[in-house]
């Protein structure tokens, strides 16, 4: 059967690309730490400080947990009798993925959306809105759950936390640079070298936070495509997800429970539903640099391409 090979290639490719992006973020962080340290005559301690910031952020966000996210959105955990079909669909997808079944949450909202959180597959949760339950049939719901299961299986929550840590650490370091600048130590002997380093440091301090954010958004888009591909791998039915995405976007009721901090967790950006629909109708496939999700038209086309190669 041809599909698994193609899918695995695609999935492997996406994993490689996001790993590369992640590495560039780490390198950026290290470069920032190094240059700043160089300016203050101790590059090693610069890198150590950068790592220190990173570790600090990481610990906090890792243990903050998905419970907080769920609570903040007013999601309610359900058990099988509350919604047997939804429960079954999630259970089926976790069997297909070979991971323990995540907890299932429901948000009361007419907006249609879904998301997944959890630092590892055995501590994961999947949440859907009542809105999405109404507009999708069982097959399409399964495809959406498959996408979320993909996020869980691919450790995407953990990945995005790591990215956020990188970005935060870089921003913090650059911020610290501006504050500490007044107390810099320079000797007359290497005045010119110092000046060059200073220029580099200033440029980095301005551009690095922006570059980090751009990398972060790019990674987010790659992981979304990866989750789409995983959904196709699990259901062997990419057409269902394509239809589900079209339906979700056409029902453009903004989910007011989401905000800029959580928008990237959802299957389609809940803050941009109206714009998504316009983009889809225009067939727009190029993503904006600051988009958390790839354009729907692109996602749908890639999914339908998978459906055809299955042949």
């Amino acid at each position, binding site marked *: 059967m041809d599909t*698994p090979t193609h899918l695995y290639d695609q999935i492997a490719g996406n994993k490689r690309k996001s790993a590369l992006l992640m590495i560039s973020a780490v390198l950026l962080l290290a470069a920032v730490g190094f240059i700043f340290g160089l300016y203050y005559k101790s590059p090693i301690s610069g890198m150590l400080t950068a790592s220190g910031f990173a570790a600090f952020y990481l610990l906090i966000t890792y243990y903050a947990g998905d419970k907080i996210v769920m609570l903040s959105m007013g999601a309610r955990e359900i058990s099988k009798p509350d919604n*047997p*079909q939804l429960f*079954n*669909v999630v*259970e*089926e*997808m976790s*069997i*297909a*993925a*070979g991971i323990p079944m995540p907890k299932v949450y429901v948000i009361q909202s007419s907006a249609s959306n879904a998301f997944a959180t959890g630092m590892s597959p055995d501590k994961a949760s999947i949440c859907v809105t009542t809105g999405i339950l109404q507009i999708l049939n069982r097959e399409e719901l399964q495809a959406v759950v498959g996408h979320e299961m993909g996020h869980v299986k691919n450790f995407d929550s953990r990945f995005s936390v790591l990215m956020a840590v990188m970005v935060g650490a870089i921003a913090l370091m650059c911020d610290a640079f501006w504050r500490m600048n007044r107390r810099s130590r320079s000797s007359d002997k290497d005045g010119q070298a110092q000046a060059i380093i200073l220029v580099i440091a200033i440029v980095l301090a301005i551009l690095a936070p922006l570059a980090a954010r751009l990398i972060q958004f790019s990674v987010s888009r790659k992981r979304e495509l990866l989750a789409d591909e995983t959904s196709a791998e*699990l259901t*062997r039915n990419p057409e269902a997800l394509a239809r589900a995405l079209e339906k979700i976007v056409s029902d453009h009721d903004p989910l007011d429970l989401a905000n800029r901090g959580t928008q990237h967790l959802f299957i389609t950006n809940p803050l941009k539903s109206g714009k998504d629909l316009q983009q889809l109708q225009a067939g727009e496939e190029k993503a904006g640099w600051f988009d958390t999700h790839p354009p729907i038209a692109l996602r749908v086309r890639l999914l339908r391409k998978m459906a055809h190669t299955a042949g």
Partner: protein
Amino acid sequence: MAIATIVLIAVPVVVVLWVIGSYNGLIKWKNQVKNAWAQIDVQLKRRYDLIPNLVETVKGYAKHEKETLENVTKARNMAAQATSPKDVAAAENVLSGALKSLFAVSEAYPDLKANQNFLALQEELSSTENKISFARQFYNDTVARFNTMIQSFPKNIMAGMFGFQAAQMFEIEAPEERKAVKVQF
């Protein structure tokens, strides 16, 4: 310390580490294959347990369909007792066919179709069918990965040395399923 000495120590260490790593990887995947197989079993048993309940519910409404109901019960018992994978596969086919007939027949009984119990059972059975099929899918995917691993270089050396063998895919060849695909335009 001459470079030669360092190399003489480092190389065997690296090789040993690699051997340990590869072996552990092979063990992990071998167990995943076993696990995936067990999962199929779990879902099959679940189906067997659901069926008596279904038969009882239908009996109440569709007294004339005694034969269809008996077919289902017979098929279910046969499948539950089958042991070898081939027998299980064959019995499963018969059971699927019997269940299809049962649900087709129930279309003629609107009271039955409206019965909450029956609807819930239908969802459960249909979900269980899905779970069986996903468990098989996962099993086959796992087997494919495991087999590829032990057949590719350099792990095939490890696999040969420690006696890891390729696992078998789980194929239920249902002729009816094949025919259904051909009918699609």
